[in-house]
């Protein structure tokens, strides 16, 4: 049996069951979510890690030949190196977040509804990563999007509602742009399947101006979802306003599956080789890197600071993609993977620190290492990862990005990236000095460590950061390299979608 549809079916079913469990037992939904995320983790190991890349025609509506033209009649789900990387990322982070959520959400009313939305979010992200045609990509992006708008507003406090509304408005503009782009691609090529679109474009059957228009719309739409710099305004409001587990999901996963993955897929597989896109990514990525970290330096609110760092770190990923070589794409995807691990760990830490100190403001914290040693160790580990201190994973991916930029002939951008990495380090040293070290303020003398069930998943994520940092040379080829090979040929960095086309169209 093919395991690929289960990546979408399991969380969708879990969401449905959580809704049913709402009236029966208040804690049943929590267990359902734990079971679903554990199942996804097992699936990611079973089908994801060693699995063959293949395409699955849903309902058997696969390739047809009519009048000598091969085309895909139905919906296909495609599991290739790129999807595999993101599926593993989603499974790892959402499992850690689900465990953390058990304790964190214990005091929230409406927990079952939270779990419904949480599972829908996972289903949407997994579906978007597996979708083999443009319209399905749009639908799954919307499933994840709508779940995330509702989750940002989950606390229904005044600030959260305001942030959610802002996020919803900009998110709907993004989806409008994406849907319009899908329409333009269909008008220009007459097909929606990604491999089909590529084949038509390669055959010269698609008008170039219309294609350029569609590319610009895709970049706007997914750029908004990824919070690339001119489109970033919603992120510093939305990510901090959500409950901590959701901040971790949004910053750790959502901006990557809906942003990075979609941009790599669209401009790697669907619309081949347009010289202007990498330049745009380089410029906007540099802008995000620099302005994100500068705005983060001045923040006093811990979660807001982390949100600005997300923008800055996404800038690293996009300049790496903009290098437009195999090494660049591999480094960018590696950094996206690492960022998923340490940024979700940091947001979970921020939730724990908020519980311990009773505030999110750095000026209200201090000396917490004396009162909460485990959380402090986790925070320090994750902060070292994001600021790129060896041997943590953040160091290696940033180093690879800088190397890729130099080898692709963009030394200026490489210098900017190195400078931003130093500024990120400064910013996190500041966080540690203010929150964890120094004298313990009087009002925190009775502060208590959070329960072990909350610290343990963060420590696991931090341990994963360390393990990735130490063992990455052994995973590069099989995991990161094959993800990058989905769009670029490793040897000469020319554009490659041949395997993908072969998988889907069976030529």
């Amino acid at each position, binding site marked *: 049996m093919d395991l690929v549809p289960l990546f979408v079916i399991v969380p969708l079913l879990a969401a449905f069951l959580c809704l049913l469990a709402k009236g029966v037992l208040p804690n049943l939904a929590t267990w359902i979510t734990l079971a679903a995320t554990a199942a996804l983790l097992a699936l990611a190991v079973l089908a994801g890690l060693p699995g063959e890349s293949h395409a699955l025609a849903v309902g058997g509506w696969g390739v047809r030949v009519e*009048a000598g033209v091969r085309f895909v009649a139905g919906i296909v789900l495609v599991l290739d190196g790129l999807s595999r990387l993101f599926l593993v990322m989603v499974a790892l982070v959402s499992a850690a977040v689900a465990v953390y959520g058990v304790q964190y959400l214990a005091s929230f009313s409406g927990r079952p509804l939270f779990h419904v939305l949480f599972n829908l979010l996972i289903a949407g992200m997994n579906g978007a990563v597996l979708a083999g045609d443009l*319209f399905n990509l749009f*639908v799954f992006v*919307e499933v994840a999007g*709508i779940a995330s*708008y*509702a989750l940002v*507003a989950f606390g*229904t*406090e*005044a*600030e959260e*509602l*305001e*942030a*959610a*509304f*802002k996020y*919803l*408005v900009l998110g*709907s*503009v993004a*989806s*409008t742009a994406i*849907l*319009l782009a*899908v*329409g333009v691609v*269909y*008008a220009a090529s007459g097909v*929606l399947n990604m491999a089909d679109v590529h084949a038509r474009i390669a055959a010269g059957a698609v008008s170039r101006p219309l294609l350029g228009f569609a590319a610009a719309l895709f970049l706007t739409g997914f750029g908004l979802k990824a919070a690339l710099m001119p489109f970033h305004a919603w992120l*510093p*409001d939305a990510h901090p*306003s959500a409950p901590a587990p959701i901040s971790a999901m949004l910053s750790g996963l959502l901006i990557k599956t809906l942003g990075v993955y979609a941009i790599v897929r669209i401009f790697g597989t669907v619309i081949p080789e347009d010289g202007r896109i990498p330049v745009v990514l380089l410029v906007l990525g540099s802008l995000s890197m620099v302005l994100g970290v500068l705005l983060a330096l*001045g*923040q006093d*609110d811990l979660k*807001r600071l982390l949100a600005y760092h997300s923008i800055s770190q996404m800038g690293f990923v996009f300049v790496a993609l903009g290098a437009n070589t195999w090494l660049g794409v591999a480094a960018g995807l590696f950094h996206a993977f690492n960022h998923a691990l340490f940024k979700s760990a940091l947001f979970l830490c921020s939730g724990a620190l908020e519980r311990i100190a009773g505030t999110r403001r750095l000026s209200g914290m201090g000396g917490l290492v004396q009162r909460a040693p485990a959380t402090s160790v986790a925070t320090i580990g994750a902060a070292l990862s994001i600021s790129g201190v060896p041997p943590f994973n953040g160091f290696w991916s940033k180093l690879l990005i800088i190397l890729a930029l130099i080898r692709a002939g963009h030394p200026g951008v490489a210098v900017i990236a190195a400078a931003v990495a130093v500024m990120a380090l400064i910013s996190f040293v500041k966080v540690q000095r203010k929150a964890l070290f120094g004298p313990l303020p009087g009002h925190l003398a009775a502060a208590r460590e959070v329960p072990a069930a909350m610290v343990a998943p963060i420590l696991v994520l931090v341990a994963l950061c360390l393990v990735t940092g130490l063992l990455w040379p052994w995973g590069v080829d099989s995991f990161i390299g094959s993800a990058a090979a989905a769009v670029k040929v490793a040897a000469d960095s020319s554009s490659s979608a041949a395997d993908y086309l072969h998988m889907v169209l069976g030529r």
Partner: protein
Amino acid sequence: MMYLLALLLLFIGLYGLLVKRSLVKKILGLLIVEHAVNLFLILVGYRSDGLPPILLPGEDAGEFVRASVDPLPQALVLTSIVIGLGLVMLMVALSLRIHERHGTLDCSKLNRLKG
């Protein structure tokens, strides 16, 4: 020509969604935006004097494809209407809660978030 009208409608909707300060007008803006995009999708598959896209038994498939309206965009629009409905409902629900908490629907008075 019709494409330009759909585009015009899109820009009117975007203006309402992004520039207007009242949350109700933003919701109306979103509705107009959705209609504009749906209209655009329908136009992509439209053909004047086209047949309804239902293949009857005994009809020649090649002839049918040449004469009928393209059904695929219509299927897309059905899905996108449902998604749009979800978005609008969520927006209305949020607006109601915002009115409850802030006592206003004017988004220029919603300024708790800064920095």
